């Protein structure tokens, strides 16, 4: 199968050119196949979030190549990155980051609305279907503030899959949920991985969840542990 994600000798430094310049990632080589379900683990400060932001096209690397769905991101300008991000990547954050002004249904439609400019019937149907799959068929018109933490995270997962992205990035998706709810959410991610064929890269502290993934990639002090790659 083709690689959905490929990183070659990727480095990331902050405060470049200043006395306090710090390199957070020291040459990362990593490939993720389409449909793969992988966990990214490592202690705090190992550079997990930075790596996820690079893969998420939210930041550019200081050195090295990143290819997403076969496209070299170095060759893309800001607008190209924005478009690639919108169409190819889905995000699930620790804090759901739903838009509080919009209902669950509207939140799930949002990525498609951004992509196409205006709402369509197909968009609405897709969002309705996704919410039904995460078990929120009855909460379509509820605002996030009317939903529990677990339900909010379900909405966020449905939203991440709206564009049917080949790669979903999840940053501590179960970080602030109780273990029972966390298991449910994890099962849901797994389910979407099987049903929709999206690859998942999940950053987590939770060894139990990591154990449930097909592959564990471990980051330590800005380098991947060779054994896990």
């Amino acid at each position, binding site marked *: 199968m083709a690689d959905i994600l490929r990183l070659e000798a990727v480095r990331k430094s902050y405060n470049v050119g200043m006395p306090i310049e710090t390199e957070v990632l020291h040459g990362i080589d990593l490939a993720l196949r389409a449909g793969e379900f992988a966990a990214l683990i490592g202690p705090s400060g190992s550079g997990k979030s930075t790596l996820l932001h690079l893969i998420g096209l939210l930041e550019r690397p200081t050195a090295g190549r990143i290819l997403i769905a076969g496209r070299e991101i170095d060759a893309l300008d800001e*607008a190209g990155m*924005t478009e690639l991000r919108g169409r190819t990547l889905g*995000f699930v954050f620790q*804090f759901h980051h739903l838009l509080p002004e919009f209902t669950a249904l509207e939140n799930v439609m949002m990525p498609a*609305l*951004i992509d196409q400019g*205006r709402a369509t019937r197909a968009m609405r149907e897709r969002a309705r279907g996704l919410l039904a799959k995460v078990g929120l068929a009855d909460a379509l018109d509820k605002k996030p503030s009317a939903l529990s933490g677990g339900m909010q995270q379900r909405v966020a997962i449905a939203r991440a899959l709206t564009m049917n992205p080949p790669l979903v990035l999840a940053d501590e998706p179960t970080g602030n949920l109780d273990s029972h709810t966390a298991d449910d959410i994890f099962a849901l991610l797994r389910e979407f991985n099987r049903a929709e064929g999206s690859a998942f890269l999940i950053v987590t502290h939770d060894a139990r969840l990591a154990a449930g993934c097909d592959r564990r990639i471990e980051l330590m002090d800005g380098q991947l542990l060779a054994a896990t790659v």
Partner: protein
Amino acid sequence: MPFEWVLALRFLREGRMQTALIMAGTTVGVAVIIFITALMNGLQASLATRTLSTQAHVSVRAPDDAPTPVLERAGATSVVAHIEPRVQRLRSIDQWQRVTRELVALPHVVDVSPITTGSGFAFRGNASKSIALMGVIPERYDRIVKVSDKLTAGQFRVGPGEAVIGIELARDLGAAVGDRIRILSSENRDDVFRLTGLFDLGVKDLNRRWVIMPLRSAQSLLDLSGGVTHIDLTVDDIFAAEDVATRIVSQTGLTAESWMAINTQLLTAFKNQNMTTRTVRVFMLLIVALGIASVLVVSVVQKQREIGILRAMGASPRRIMRVFLIQGGIVGGSGALLGSGLATLMVYGASFALRQDDGSALISGRIEASYYLTAAAVAVLTGLLAAVAPARRAAKMDPVEAIRYG
């Protein structure tokens, strides 16, 4: 509806308190701007109308006599000359009937009245007073200066051998309606008139000097057979008088003076008032703009995380910027709409509350459509401009920063 509009409207709707406050601020700002503009214009129009009730809006007369040089200037010869200004004679406007027809045809001109005027004396018994002869065509002149509305006795009827005079002159001469007075003109001709009415124009000097008589009588007393010295006219927009005068000068070669040129002090007062009004308007707009900007800045900071997630989902900085610009425009636009409504009520109320001495309304309750349109355009523009800084700030927001600190 496009994505940017969906977001802008929803942000405003869900902003409840903030949105309500800033809309109220914008509404009041726009209302005050429209209101003081309407009030000032109303006051000026009413003041001008009062001042102009005894004046033509534009007065046309023959050009002054210029001195004719005796010595022609030839080649390189220098001429040292002292030129005496000529004595101005009483002169008739050349072909005044044709000129009158021309003036009537000009844009803005409403009424035209030919007048023959000169100076003289009025006698009755032992009393003699210096006066101004006003030879007029009564029905025409009455449309320029509403003499018939200002009569205190008798009626405004000046047939041959009849005249109306002001109340002050009547008192000086001890004359009443029906009495006869003798008029001696500066051309040393005299005639006797029977008084048919007394007027009070509200200006003592005019009440003391004007003797309104038939045009023909004035012409013969002043030795201007068939001629007129002035053509007075009114215009539909009093502030267009100067333009009309300028046009008359260039078109006829005659001298034309507008009320503005004659009452320069009144005009200066108006100009100063206008400057005050403008200053107030500019500061109101500034306050409105600052209000909108501050609310939007707060909103951008509050929505930091949402902006981050929108960017992560593929919304470009430019589109994020547009979301906030639209909010500014909407606030300005709806403020203009509501403000226009409020201003209409305020002006309507003021038209009842503000009365002149005679009980008539000081300003009309109507607002010109152009005020609304201007206010709307300016308010939307102000809203957009006020939103520029917050919108740029939103666009520049780093999604990573926004997302990281949940």
